[in-house]
């Protein structure tokens, strides 16, 4: 789960990290009022979960009332890489002489957190990591002990942070690690930390992503999650408890188990089709889950055919087949052709139960995918 910049900044400010004065606005009037109160110059920043907002026109500076009004008008309602901007953060523009990067993330290879500091702040840090890895100082932290103050200092001095601000930056990093730890964050970063001409340090941006699997014990953060920001179908999937990702093809895919569903997508592509989605219905495929899954996939107007790929382990093929019959039996007319492939426990019994008038039954994964791709192509031609 991703926090918006304004939410993360609030968390940072509460923890004592210096942040610029700012106000959230959802209309041009509110934005102008906020700018007048803060005093110029201000930055008007789109609050959407998109990287590279600045380059895409989602951040504008304003030196007076007129410019603030123009900036808010331009940004509010704009489409930023598929997301509509509904709120902006109006923020005191900091006059800086230098920009740093400070962050904490999980190094999955090492299985432990790593703190990172770089004097190349204000730019895409992943690009820096690729082109100039030496420019980022990394300090691994023992997750059982937490970050010792010396580790923060080490990272800061190794990165070459100017000595006038080193101790303040180390203190920010220590606080950031504590926040990472306390809030079950997966990533937390400030890019940039701005250094002013009188050696003040200010967090000018804020990124905070929380481990979805830990939200159950982070109720305050979980409440910050916005449903409106999500794709409508993805929101529906959440409600049904499915792992779902929408893609832009026309072959709908339903399966059990992440690896097998990904493989089904890959095979659709391999046989010349284009997957419309990733949908993992998980273990057990009772009628209700099957109905919900079909409802999801049919709700995507791009879908021209559906392939249902179930490998029954503990899940029994005959139960799945009954579920599919029941689900499709509720339709007067099946919206799009459905191909079913059942394997594993009681697959044969399942295939016998499946109603040939409702679905096409294939025995192998390869045949099922090819048939679904054929159906989708035929729908497109019509």
């Amino acid at each position, binding site marked *: 789960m991703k926090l918006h910049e304004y939410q993360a900044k609030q968390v940072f400010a509460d923890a004592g990290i210096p942040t610029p004065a700012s106000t959230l606005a959802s209309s041009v009037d509110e934005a102008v009022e906020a700018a007048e109160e803060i005093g110029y110059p201000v930055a008007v920043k789109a609050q959407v979960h998109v*990287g590279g907002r600045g380059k895409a026109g989602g951040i504008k500076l304003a030196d007076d009332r007129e410019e603030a009004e123009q900036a808010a008008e331009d940004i509010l309602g704009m489409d930023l890489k598929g997301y509509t901007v509904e709120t902006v953060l109006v923020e005191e523009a900091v006059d800086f002489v230098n920009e740093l990067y400070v962050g904490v993330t*999980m190094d*999955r*290879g090492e*299985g*432990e*957190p790593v703190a990172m500091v770089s004097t190349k702040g204000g730019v895409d840090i*992943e*690009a820096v*990591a*690729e082109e100039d890895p030496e420019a980022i100082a990394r300090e691994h932290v*023992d*997750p*059982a002990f937490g970050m010792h103050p010396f580790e923060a200092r080490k990272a800061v001095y190794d990165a070459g942070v100017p000595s006038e601000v080193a101790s303040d930056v180390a203190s920010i990093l220590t606080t950031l690690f504590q926040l990472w*730890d306390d809030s*079950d964050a*997966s990533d937390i970063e400030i890019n940039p930390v701005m250094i002013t001409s009188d050696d003040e340090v200010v967090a000018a941006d804020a990124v905070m992503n929380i*481990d*979805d*699997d*830990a939200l*159950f*014990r982070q109720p305050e953060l979980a409440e910050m999650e916005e449903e409106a920001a999500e794709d409508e179908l993805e929101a529906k999937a959440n409600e049904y408890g499915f*792992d779902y*990702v929408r*893609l832009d093809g026309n072959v709908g895919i339903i*399966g*059990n*188990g*992440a*690896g*097998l*569903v*990904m*493989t089904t*997508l*890959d*095979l*659709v*592509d*391999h046989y010349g089709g284009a*997957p419309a989605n*990733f949908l*993992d219905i998980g273990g057990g495929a009772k009628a209700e889950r099957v109905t919900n899954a079909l409802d999801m996939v049919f709700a995507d107007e791009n879908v021209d055919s559906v392939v249902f790929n179930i*490998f*029954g*382990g*503990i899940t029994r093929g005959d139960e799945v087949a009954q579920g599919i019959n029941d689900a499709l039996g509720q339709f007067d007319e099946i919206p799009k052709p459905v191909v079913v492939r059942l*394997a*594993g*426990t009681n697959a044969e019994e399942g295939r016998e139960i499946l109603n040939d008038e409702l679905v096409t039954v294939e025995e*192998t*994964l*390869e045949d099922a995918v090819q048939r679904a791709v054929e159906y989708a192509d035929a729908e497109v031609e019509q």
Partner: protein
Amino acid sequence: MSVLVDDDTRVVVQGITGGEGNFHAEQMIEYGTNVVAGAVPGKGGQEVHGVPVYDTVERAAREEDADASVVFVPPAFAADAVFEALDAPLDLVVAITEGIPTQDMSKVYKRLGEVDTRLIGPNCPGIITPGEAKLGILPGNIFESGDVGLVSRSGTLTYQVVDNLTSRGIGQTTAIGIGGDPIIGTDFVDALELFENDPDTKAVVMCGEIGGEDEEEAARYIAENMDTPVAGFIAGRTAPPGKRMGHAGAIVSGSGTGTAESKIQALNDAGVPVGDTPNEVADHIEDFL
């Protein structure tokens, strides 16, 4: 022969009184696994499927001489359950639980470096030595005893590949589901090393997926250390960057690391053929044998 588990393995089921634990304990016993105890705090003295339940893992291990456990404990308490098994101590812990917070697993991972216990998982289907023992939720009926070792990050994909093998009469020494989380105990390299040192394993299937760099590391290990032939499969070729494809670990980062292309390339460079379909993986294995 086999790796890690066989019919001598004495198993404790942690969480045996819960829905999942209860059901799968019965399935494991039916398969012939030597399940000797259950461990659930507050349930000591009960009996489930003819197996005595103890309040602590340490007591279960001591009383029943157990050396392995399977963890069916809900995510919020699962890391603690693994720590308890490490403390007992057992030789092998298989964590089935999906959805353990990553920071909890980071602490477990740190501890694993300090003890002799091996962890498989979490978020995995478990491990099976066909005809001898299964620790986990894998459907026993699709496996057959034979010469091929299998290691995979995914459950149902494993079943798919095993089905492609078994239907051709190719059996398995041991199959290990290492799990789909970002931080896991036994990784590809660990499993490959076990198979390389097992004289009965004549070929190995490795099923990877997008995310992380474990497959690339495995490719380096294979090139430098393995004589046993390996065939691979990588799921997630069509996954878009930044989207989590079901598994917490299956995500391609914005900067392009963890992609299927990078993994397939690394494996090919190590001389490992990678199938475009699960059935093609079985073709490669057939060629090896």
